[in-house]
């Protein structure tokens, strides 16, 4: 369902050109659980941003569910992000003045769902991650782990087929991190495609497929048939 062909991404920094990605080719099937690893500055976040349509490649094509998404208009890309893709960030990126429920509701609000349906789905989603009684708390009243759980609820409220997580546990202690990973992995059972960028070998080892990126290129791409979960 995802096919990247000859993806390049260059950044102009002053009079210097930084090659963040140098010709990445990869195919990802629906329902895969992929861990992306690699040294700092190797291009992991850049790859994830491209997959999430937050960025456009300098060269190459990106086909998502059969459509070439690089040629879509801003409006169409926004719609794709809204309906097909969920994003979880290292720094949570919750809107500080909105409550947990309102943050989770945001993608549905943007999509124009009627308020009743929004409220119903948000309540169910918060209950799923065990934060029902925190619905009306603002982010600064929540712990890091709780914030990341709210962020996951927000990323999945539109029932996307692809969930991208950039170091989702990077800012959490190991116990909260494990809880976050448990919630993410539960989503795979529901058929979601999960791509996680991580520095944590323990987390990476749980994925069926591990892609290691070095200097903007794929160094290894390993599928583990019988993973030791």
């Amino acid at each position: 369902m995802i096919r990247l062909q000859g993806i390049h991404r260059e950044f102009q920094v002053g009079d210097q050109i930084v090659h963040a990605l140098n010709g990445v080719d990869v195919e990802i099937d629906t329902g895969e659980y992929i861990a992306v690893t690699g040294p700092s500055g190797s291009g992991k976040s850049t790859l994830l941003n491209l997959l999430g349509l937050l960025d456009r490649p300098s060269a190459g094509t990106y086909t998502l569910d059969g459509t070439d998404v690089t040629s879509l208009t801003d409006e169409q890309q926004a719609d794709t992000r809204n309906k097909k893709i969920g994003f979880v960030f290292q720094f949570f990126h919750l809107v500080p003045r909105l409550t947990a429920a309102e943050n989770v509701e945001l993608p549905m609000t943007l999509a124009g769902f009627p308020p009743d349906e929004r409220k119903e789905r948000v309540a169910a989603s918060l209950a799923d991650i065990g934060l029902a009684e925190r619905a009306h708390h603002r982010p600064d009243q929540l712990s890091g782990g709780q914030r990341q759980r709210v962020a996951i609820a927000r990323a999945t409220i539109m029932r996307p087929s692809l969930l991208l997580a950039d170091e989702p546990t990077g800012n959490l202690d190991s116990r909260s991190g494990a809880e976050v990973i448990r919630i993410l992995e539960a989503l795979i059972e529901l058929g979601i495609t999960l791509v996680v960028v991580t520095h944590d070998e323990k987390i990476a080892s749980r994925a069926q497929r591990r892609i290691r990126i070095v200097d903007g290129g794929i160094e290894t791409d390993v599928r583990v048939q019988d993973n030791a979960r």
Partner: protein
Amino acid sequence: MRVSDIFQFALASLAGYRTRTILMLLAMSIGVAAVVILTSLGEGARRYVANQFSSLGTHLLIVLPGRSETAGASPSTLMGETPRDLTLGDAEALSRSRHVRRVAPISVGMSAVSWSSRERDVIILGANADFIDIRRWKMARGRFLPRSNLDEAAPVAVIGEKVRKELFGAQNALGQWLRIGDYRFRVIGILGSSGQSIGVDTEELIIIPVASAQTIFNNPSLFRILVEAKSRAAMPLAEAAVLDTIRQRHQGEEDVTVITQNAVLATFDRIFVALTLTVAGIAAISLAVAGILIMNVMLVAVTQRRAEIGLLKALGAPGREILELFLAEALSLSVVGAVAGLLLGQLGSLVIRQMFPEFPAFAPWWASVAGITVAVVTGTLFSLLPARRAARLDPIDALSRR
């Protein structure tokens, strides 16, 4: 996104940045309040003058000897002739017109007036019985001039309040004989003080029959003739009749000027409307300044809220929707600010009216409408630039903590 959600989101973010919001509201509302208060002052001045004029009587024509220059040079003035005087005969003839209710011939002069040992110089007004009704003045005591033929020089006088006080002090003035020039007059009435009336102070004059005044001043020509038309509608007819009569009596020369209440009022009206527009314009500049302030604050807001904007984009908001969100914020701000300003302005003009009751400081409706419109339009226009900047933000740039 639904329109109601857009505004709800906008209002929530305005409430989230309280200081900034209050600052912008203040700028907006002061601008609108300035428009309302300044125009209410201009309008108040206009109405004040209009009221003063209507105290003169609304269907009044004033006939002056001589042709006014604005009406174009007539052959007689070109040849340097002095125009014919207005006489009692002219006044008599004017009063016979179908469109004229009554006339008052007036002659004016200054004379020494004395009673017992006291003496003073006083303005002497020669008039007739109809004069007091035409000018809408009131008597304090006694009677006004009696009804009689215009050429009858009765020795009676009606005196102003201040004249009375200065000549008679605590003594009763009614029925006393005072001396004006070389003639003796009996005081038959005392004028009420009718406030300020354009041009004359009713307290500082003496009114005597016009024929008596002509005798004292030894001058048969009139200062002017006041003509009251039968109705407001009859004013143009009365004016034509006046000119017609004068032409017939003055060997075909139209050597008088007729001033109508309306013409004078219209001139003042134009002046004050221009004045009001000017102050409204000046006040509108403060709205433009408010607009620029809003633009500035919005630009800062966009920079501060980069992360939020990037996030909204990541969650599926297209650039257009970001633009709408920021414009909705600007629009809500402007509307609330403008309405607050309107209330503030109305309150301000109410206070002015309370402090100066005879000054009707009411903001004209168009000023309120214009003030609100300009506020909303500038508020929104000046937010367009920051909103577009927000809409074009790159989501990863906005999200990264670089």
